[in-house]
């Protein structure tokens, strides 16, 4: 039963979506709308799972005085504190928005900015003329980078034209190939799930 019930729900939901999307049922908008609403409601409840899990893991860290347990205290205080503030003030609240705009925004942007440094070190380390394919890749990367900055433009219109050609033609071709392949692959996965062949997500053997 542990696997049969989820399987049944999966198949039922899949059939409802397929029928709702392709077949003219007269009032199918209502069917699809209801499906979306169920998903919406169940998803909102599932947010609680994350909250409970975080509380349990970090509560345990504190109780067992694990290394760095004080970080768990900070996490729980900030998480529940901000949640409470949001509930009291609403998302239009001055303090709520001030914290968001002045703390969270900057912290998040800082983490993202790490990427710039990692790109530099990865490029230095890995972009080598090891083979002719790697050389083609290197030339294309160089050209696109140069074409994207005003210095490249200053060298002549051919730099920008070349960059645009790389982006519009070979890049588009490669991206389409990967995307079509990935979509067909995703379709096969969906088939395996609907047919009950792929059961890894229910735990245990595929």
């Amino acid at each position, binding site marked *: 039963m542990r696997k049969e019930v989820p399987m049944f729900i999966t198949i039922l939901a899949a059939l409802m979506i397929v029928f709702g999307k392709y077949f003219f049922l007269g009032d199918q908008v209502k069917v*699809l*709308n209801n499906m979306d609403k169920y998903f*919406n409601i169940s998803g909102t409840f599932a947010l609680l799972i994350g909250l409970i899990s975080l509380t349990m893991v970090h509560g345990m860290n504190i109780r067992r005085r694990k290394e760095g347990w004080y970080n768990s205290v900070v996490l729980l205080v900030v998480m529940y504190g901000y949640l409470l503030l949001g509930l009291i003030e609403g998302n239009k609240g001055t303090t709520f928005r001030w914290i968001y*705009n002045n703390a969270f925004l900057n912290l998040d942007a800082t983490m993202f900015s790490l990427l710039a440094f990692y790109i530099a*070190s990865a490029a230095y380390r890995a972009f080598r003329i090891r083979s002719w394919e790697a050389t083609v890749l290197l030339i294309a990367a160089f050209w696109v*980078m140069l074409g994207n900055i005003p210095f490249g433009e200053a060298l002549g219109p051919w730099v*920008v034209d070349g960059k645009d050609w790389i982006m519009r033609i070979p890049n588009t071709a490669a991206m389409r190939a990967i995307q079509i392949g990935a979509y067909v692959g995703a379709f096969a996965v969906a088939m395996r799930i609907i047919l009950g062949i792929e059961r890894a997500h229910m735990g245990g053997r595929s």
Partner: protein
Amino acid sequence: MNIFERMQKIDPRVIYIIFFLVLAIPVLFPAPLPLATTKETKMAYDFVEKMPEGSVLWIGADYGPSTVPEMGPVSKAVLRQAFKKNLKVVIFPMWQDGQALMQNFAEEIGKEMKKEYGKDWVNLGWRNEAVSVLRLTTDNILSATAGVDWAGKKLADMPIMQNLTALNKDQVAGIFEFMTGNPGAAQYLERVVEPKGVPMAVACTAVSAPGEMPFVRSGQYKGLVNGLRGAAEYENLVGKPGKANAGMGAQSYGHLAIMLFIILGNIGYLLKRSR
């Protein structure tokens, strides 16, 4: 260890310090650089420009704080252009951060251009499982959003909502989607652009642009604003250069620095190999 071997095994922290300086100096002392407009940016600009006065522009605010330096300037430029053309702006975030960020930008530009919330623009607000909510808005916006805006205010009382009931081509002139990932433009393509025939232009981060380019070629996107450079071009088209133009200096020197790193790395590699 000779110099070539040393070049191959340089401490990443040295690279980080050099890169930090290369990026920080142009930010602190910005110098404007000339910039040509790419075809895709001009297409996006014209897409908004051709919308009839008083029509609805639907803005998808789908990015987080991390990409504000890239997406913020273009968001402001599009809002400025829309308000200048007296378009009615409807903000619909599928990212919870998009709600607050686009609200900040719209408040700022709206105040500057004397536009009133509820009459000239509205923020429908983020809801959990927003992709389902997006599809529901194509049928009935009030029902999809439970009848309230981002701050819980009743939508039915707002003048902007009096002639706007659903996201379709009869009521919405076009969509401008600001995307950095998923949910993003793909969800609009599947749920709104293809089935409902509403045209869409997209602004995305430079890293996502190669993946989005096929959709411009296929005509499914009416334009594509590519990263900070695209944002700078858009600012120039709107006639108010801002942070994107200022940031282009840092981006330009940053690109040059990366190119230099690659050249140095390869010189070291080739010389080591030839020995």
